[in-house]
């Protein structure tokens, strides 16, 4: 597999088109306040214009505090859009603490310059983005949604009852 094909694996190109979780409306993205237990963050990469607004809500259930929903609206390269889609797939199934851990794990992989491979058991399809770490100029693209999620999560937890 060439380095280009390792960067753009089929699963990445498919996610870039499918955009799971990419259902946040323009109206919602422009709102400046939201309910308790919800957080929203806008991230822009001024270098290339990649942009995402991500909204996330938490809820308390039997297994503790979990992610209730994660939606985003974005525009950008296939890496940034695929990454947001993959993150959305993960977030439906995890607790607040688990998501925070996954974001940290993903960041470690992306900053590793090719030395750390993501674990598909943990990161799901997002493990396919491990190859991005060999392209320093693209790390920010892959991190965009995750940085937005990290901030939205912090807000959501801070305002949850």
């Amino acid at each position, binding site marked *: 597999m060439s*380095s*280009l094909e390792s*960067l*753009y694996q089929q699963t990445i190109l498919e996610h870039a088109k499918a955009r799971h979780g990419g259902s946040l409306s323009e109206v919602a993205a422009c709102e400046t306040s939201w309910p308790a237990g919800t957080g929203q963050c806008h991230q822009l990469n001024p270098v*290339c*214009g990649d942009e995402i607004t991500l909204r996330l809500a938490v809820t308390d259930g039997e297994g503790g505090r979990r992610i209730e929903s994660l939606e985003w609206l974005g525009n*950008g*390269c296939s890496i940034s859009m695929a990454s947001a889609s993959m993150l959305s797939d993960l977030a439906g199934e995890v607790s607040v603490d688990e998501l925070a851990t996954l974001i940290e794990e993903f960041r470690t992989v992306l900053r590793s310059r090719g030395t750390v491979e993501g674990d598909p058991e943990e990161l799901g399809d997002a493990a396919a983005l491990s190859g991005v770490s060999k392209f320093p100029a*693209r790390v920010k*693209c892959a991190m965009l949604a995750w940085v937005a999620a990290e901030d939205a999560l912090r807000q959501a937890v801070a305002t949850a009852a």
Partner: protein
Amino acid sequence: MHTSVPLTDVEVLRIRNDFPLLAHPVNGRPLVYLDSGATSQNPLSVLEAEQEFYEQRNSAVHRGAHTLAAHATLAFEDARATVAAFVGAREEEIVWTSNATAGLNLLAYAFSNASVGEVAPEARRFALGPGDEVVVTEMEHHANLVPWQELCRRTGATLRYIPLTDEGTLDLDEAARVISPRTKVLAFTHVSNVLGTINPVRDLVALAHAVDALVVVDACQSAPHLPLDVKALDVDFAVFSGHKMLGPTGIGGLYGRQELLDALPPVTTGGSMITTVTMEHSGYLPAPQRFEAGTQPVSQAIAMAAAARYLMETGMDRIHAREGVLAQRMLEGLAGLPGIRTLGPAAGVERAALVSFDVEGVHAHDVGQYLDAQGIAVRVGHHCAQPLHRRYGLSATTRASAYLYTTEDEVDAFLEGVSGVRGFFGVK
């Protein structure tokens, strides 16, 4: 269109031998460098000029009386004379800056300094305040927009702009309306770094001078690529960068008509720009020293002059003619590919040898990555021109920009590369 004979393929191949970096493969493929609009490569004569200075002349300029200092000062001022000749100016009219952005900021801050506090009588003509207007264009690089926005914010003046047409040119009818007796400064780019459009400098200068406005031209994309004569164009100020014209980074030039530069308030103050200093007051040297406080980038200035000599010896008219051929080849090639939208003047219209384009369904960043894997270096993003991109409903484009060392084979390799993009990303 062109009266000069373009550089021939054989001459271009010979030129390439002067550029060591061009021979280095990238990603296992021969490098196809199409990002000279951002930064150009350096010929050996430029690299050697810098090394020679450090090996034989390195010393402080305009300070000290020893022999080395005299040699260094002479080389530094010779460099100024060379760069001045390169743009058709007199040597006293060229101020060294670190790049074109710094030159534009120098002007904006000098106008600011003429607008507040106690101002020398000769500097009052640069003063701006409420009711005054600064006019720019919708195609400007952020470097020729943001400093003017900030100047207007500081002084209370109003910023206006000349809009773009759908064809990628300035709307000259609108220009005639926007430029008015309230206009104090007209700042515009000679050649668009995104569209490749060559603006009608003389027409715009005539509009500005008819209302006594000062004209500032961003010559970043023109000085390296076409014969530039600031006197013939009758502009008041012009800026350009060394690293876009085969020189090193960290050096650029600001041209100003002598009587303007000598009247303009200084911006960076300190050593080497003063006459008499007391504890209460300081007098300032005339231009260019007036604007060159502190130790200057001496070796870079000397290397930039070597770059100017290389370009003059090659012939700016012949470089321009050659680039005209490359521009049409790129444009016609891209026009023949499905799903590609190019910005700027259509094929057949004279333009700079740079083409920005959108690939339907594929983000520019992905286009650039795909081409990079084939050794093809292009620029992706908004190219520091967000308002321009917004005007055409885009947030990012891919830009290929050629220079005197670009071959037709490279243009063809680039076109071949672009033809594979949509297939690779699964866009039909």
